[in-house]
């Protein structure tokens, strides 16, 4: 099934501390075929608070997809991933690791912690645009995401 652009918007949570990357991702997704809402948090603790609707995120909606950077200030991406996948209510949400790292250990560790996929941010801008588009195409259009259990 291909989503129509008139359906409910897809909720994406981007966990990324670099405003440059946030902006780049936003720039690319802005033009996406699928209607989407991109929410951003800058660190791991906020990411978990957002997902658990705690504190100032009490009114946040449950995302359909999480884009997670590994290098975050304070609680890093691995720990966030581990928390999400330990949490029965959160573990169904697909997590895409989007990071500058190409290190084998990072890749292995992420999959060990049940990341749904691991993508290295390409250095080249055009490549980056391409990758984000592929993410959009695959995760927002092709993949059948789990239904929202809580609703």
């Amino acid at each position, binding site marked *: 099934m291909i989503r129509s652009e008139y359906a409910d918007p897809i909720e994406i949570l981007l966990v990324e501390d*670099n405003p*440059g*990357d946030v902006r*780049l991702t936003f*720039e690319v997704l802005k033009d996406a075929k699928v209607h989407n809402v991109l929410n951003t948090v800058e660190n791991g603790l906020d990411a978990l608070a957002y997902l658990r609707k705690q504190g100032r995120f009490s009114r946040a909606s449950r995302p359909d997809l999480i884009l997670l950077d590994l*290098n975050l200030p304070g609680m890093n991406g691995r720990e966030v991933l581990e928390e999400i996948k330990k949490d029965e209510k959160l573990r169904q949400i697909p997590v895409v690791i989007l990071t*500058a*790292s*190409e*290190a084998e250990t990072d890749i292995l560790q992420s999959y060990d912690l049940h990341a749904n996929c691991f993508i290295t*941010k390409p*250095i*080249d*801008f*055009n490549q*980056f645009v391409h990758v984000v588009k592929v993410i959009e195409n695959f995760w927002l259009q092709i993949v059948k995401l789990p239904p929202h259990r809580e609703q």
Partner: protein
Amino acid sequence: MPEGLKREDLTRHLFDIAGVIEMALERDGRINFINSHGARLLGYEAEEIIGRNWFDSFLPEGIRGECRDAFAGIMAADTEPGKPHECLVLAADGKERLIRWHSTVIRNDEGRITGLLNTGEDITGRRQAEESLRRISERQDAILQTVPDIIAEVDADKVYTWLNDAGIRFFSEDAIGREASHFFEGEQNTYNQVRPLFEGQDDTFYVESWQRRRDGRKRLLAWWCRAIKDARGNITGALSTARDITDLKRAERLIRDSFEMTKAILDNMDAIVYVADLENHEILYINEYTRNIFGDVIGKICWQALQSGQSGPCDFCTNDKLLGPDGEPAGVYNWEFRNTISGSWYDIRDQAIRWIDGRLVRLEIASDVTRRKLYEQKLATTMRKLEDSNRELEQFAYVASHDLQEPLRMISSYLQLLKQRYADKLGGDAEEFIEYAVDGASRLQRMINDLLEFSRIGTREEKRRSVSSEDSLETALAKLKLAIADSDARVTHDDLPEVKADAIQLTRLFQNLISNSIKFRSEEPIQIHVSAVKENSYWRFSVRDNGIGIDPAFKERIFMIFHQLHPHHQYPGTGIGLAICKRIVECHGGRIWVESEPGEGCTFHFTLPEASNNED
């Protein structure tokens, strides 16, 4: 003759006093007369005997017939009584006595034989004494002839007068009649030593003397000598026993020499050597080295003398480890310990051995390894520092790659975004400037990645095992498939060996060297050949090409990180390829170098350890 004494009676009394039996027999063997000595000897009074048959009453049953026959013969005048003869008689108490008889026949006036007159002498006691003397003498003879020792008798002139069998076996029969000195070997003081003996001293003298055996061999005899005196106390000679102690002396010397040698070895050992009782911990032996540290502690208790602060046997005592379940020595127990008195570290070898008296004791040999221990500790510290430093370096490289890449990505991404959206609004030069900026950023990116790869080499020693270098080369060639096809390069190789290496790094090594050869090609069609030669426990690999070659002046420099001989725009790259090769080879314990002349291609050589036999 005194009055009243008849001649007849006189004779009888004389016989009685002389202890001689006098007895007369009738022709029929009846006793006609016996004197009182004879009757007493048989245990009767003479009146009880007279008239009784001699043969039936007073001879042991076994000889009765024989004696009667002999008697009959005499009576018949067939035989003369002849010489004195010995015959047993049976006394009243049942005991037999041996009598020596003289017999003579009695005739009447007509010359007819009427009886036999016998005089007898009781020789029972004498015969017994003779018998026991004979036995003693036989025994003595047997002893003298069978003892292994030489027994010899000399006269006052020291001439051999008698030798036992052992003596004859040693000196030969000819020795008797010869002076003792005839058999002396070499100069000796023997006569002086035994002089007091011949001057009347009663002691037994001991002398050792070299003498010539009958086979001509020189043997050492130990002599024990004693003077012999006659009834008046004059010295008539000497009786000696002698034993061949040549072999004994030799064995003694051997034991003494080997003991001296063992002692010398133990005393010269640069280690504590001691023996202590397994049960009561008493020290039985120490070598000089131990004496120098602990003093003369023989006889003391080891945990008191060799350690400090022990109120009983040391809790680290190894005695319980020295015997097996069968109670027999269990072999060497090796351990390390820091002595509580000297403070030195020792490499200790403990072992149960059998002591001279047969009991099991503990033998300890402890070498001072304090210096080695200090080195080890220093080495461990250095290693730890090195590991820390390596870990920090890795951490640094990792962090650098991440943290440097993020801003770099920002630079290049936004430059490109800028270019895409605004190039036409920025004027003619903008695009070129942006290009340079983007190129610079991506070069920096590559350098960071190369640096990261470079820093990771050598951190994976555990991944080294036997690998086929030929497989690694094939993998490298597969990765370079495009480059090889594009450049039409011809890559050949000999049979390549197994080496001990990290397969991924070995592939990387070949890949870098071959792509280097392709990159620095000449006008000629590219030809690359890989070969390997065994050199001791290493294989020397050679990668030969026909490229532009390298000026020998730069032979060393090309292996330096980020070092380039040519302008970047002419030969693109970061200049890390050969630095990575060098690091890979050196981390494997090998060496890499290049042989080349400009325009004549170059050959890269590197060595790698051979595959070990005991594979994990």
